[in-house]
């Protein structure tokens, strides 16, 4: 079947195919690495890292919603040093192309993490800007274009790795934010992160999540994600990585047609651990059927 070229060039790195995992839904690859070889993936985007280890939010941290789920994990992670020492070597040994996802409480924290990661074997760094910026009184970096510009520019100065800026969908104008990321020197943008949401149990009369609010992901958000990817891909010159509710190859192809050069699979892992590899195969079949010779030809190919 491999008469089609599945590889894509993103932010200066060549991925063997356009399918990655979405940060936070794949841990450090250990669990799902028991289901298939991690080197079959375009890239593994690891759990969001912070400068120091974080405990995360109180339980319950997940709940199901119509065609979606909420999570309020709260960036529980062992910290970037532990990652570099223990997790990354294991991932690289398995031949995975690894992208580190980082969250900082200040621009300096982002820079410090970039410096550390620069000296490692990660292929790229993804900036999660949904984290509250402590210096700006708690507003998330990703919600203001000038903050997005600033953090991107500064991080680019601190290291050599390609930078993917991950956009929050909780904004009035996603294009403005994406443009700021591009202007700041971002090598690619990825979207969408989760939509801020909530669920309530009417019998206990309490929010279901221990943290009250959480992030909505899964098929429910796909139409919003597709729209944002379509808008952003039409506005920026850097590559777009699309995600949000991709369960199967059909969904993935929709994102690529909307203009995404690569896609990330998140919540779907929880439903079907084999989802990413099945999606790779499905995209390939679609390309053959539709007469495309490479996946890059299909990017943004709406008629």
């Amino acid at each position, binding site marked *: 079947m491999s008469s089609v070229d599945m590889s894509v060039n993103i932010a200066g790195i060549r991925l063997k195919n356009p399918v990655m995992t979405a940060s936070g839904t794949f841990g450090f690859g250990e669990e799902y690495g028991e289901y298939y070889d991690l080197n079959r993936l375009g890239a593994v985007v690891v759990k969001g890292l912070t400068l120091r280890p974080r405990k995360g939010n*109180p*339980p319950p941290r*997940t709940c*199901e919603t119509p065609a979606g789920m909420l999570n309020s994990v709260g960036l529980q992670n062992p910290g970037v040093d532990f990652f570099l020492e223990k997790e990354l070597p294991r991932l690289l040994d398995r031949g995975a192309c690894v992208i580190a996802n980082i969250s900082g409480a200040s621009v300096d924290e982002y820079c410090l993490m970039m410096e550390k990661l620069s000296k490692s074997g990660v292929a790229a760094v993804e900036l999660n800007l949904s984290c509250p910026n402590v210096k700006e009184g708690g507003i998330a970096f990703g919600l203001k274009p000038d903050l997005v510009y600033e953090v991107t520019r500064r991080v680019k100065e601190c290291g050599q790795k390609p930078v993917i800026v991950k956009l929050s969908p909780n904004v009035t104008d996603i294009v403005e934010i994406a443009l700021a990321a591009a202007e700041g020197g971002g090598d690619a943008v990825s979207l969408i992160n989760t939509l801020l949401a909530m669920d309530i149990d009417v019998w206990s009369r309490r929010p279901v999540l221990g943290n009250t609010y959480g992030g909505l992901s899964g098929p429910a958000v796909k139409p919003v994600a597709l729209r944002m990817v379509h808008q952003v891909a039409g506005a920026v010159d850097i590559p777009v990585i699309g995600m949000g509710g991709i369960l199967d190859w059909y969904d993935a192809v929709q994102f690529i047609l909307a203009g995404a050069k690569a896609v990330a699979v998140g919540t779907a892992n929880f*439903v079907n*651990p*084999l989802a990413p590899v099945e999606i790779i195969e499905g995209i390939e079949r679609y390309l053959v059927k539709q007469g495309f010779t490479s996946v890059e030809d299909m990017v943004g190919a709406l008629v």
Partner: protein
Amino acid sequence: MKEPKVLQVIENKPIAAGIYSLELYHHALCEEVLPGQFFHIKCGGDKFPLLRRPISLSYTKREKGAVVLIYRVQGQGTEFLSSRRPGDSLDVLGPLGSGFEVNRQYERVAIVGGGIGIAPLVELAGIYGDRAAVFAGYRDETFLLKELQERSADVRAATEDGSFGYGGFVTDLLLQYLKEQRTDMVFACGPKPMLKTVAKICRENSVGCQVSLEERMACGVGACLGCSCAVNERDGSLQYKRVCKDGPVFRAEEVCWDE
């Protein structure tokens, strides 16, 4: 490599009001699964319900190569489960989680289940046999008593409404028992308040205790950090562990009961 398994339904029948016994065929699984482990089951179509549902092993039927799961119909997912018929298949991950720590040297153990929490203890009762005193607490209607009695000669039931056995909480029975009988380990599963009481009783009577916890799950395999429960670290700090991977069975001492 692991993979999602497609298991055939052998039988799926109500055993009490709203409680079903589901028998699934899988020879290898039946050899492999440990008491306290669970399965993560796709309960429905493609997108709705979206997430899998965790259901523990209740017991194995090795001669038939079958695993038996006992579940209470709670919402959409278990509703769907209850509609499966013999011959239908289910998409299952597992066995998952750590299971109970089984020490075959123990001379006397107590096994304490509350409500549907009795189900995950049946296989364990089979391992300890007559060395186990089994305490089964119900609100009203009893179930699984026969299965427990086949495994242990000492099964004691409590009902909250007093309709069968001891009238009151099953933890009263446990307390009584621990006072009279030296016990090496207590295994418990049930609602959180019950587990908290069991843990307290065990601490006060200096008996080791393992509890099986529940938490809302997404992945079920340890990747999402969604099913955390708070545990006390040695240094006194609080840490979150994954019920699906580090548990569902925890030592009662490490569980942070006030969270």
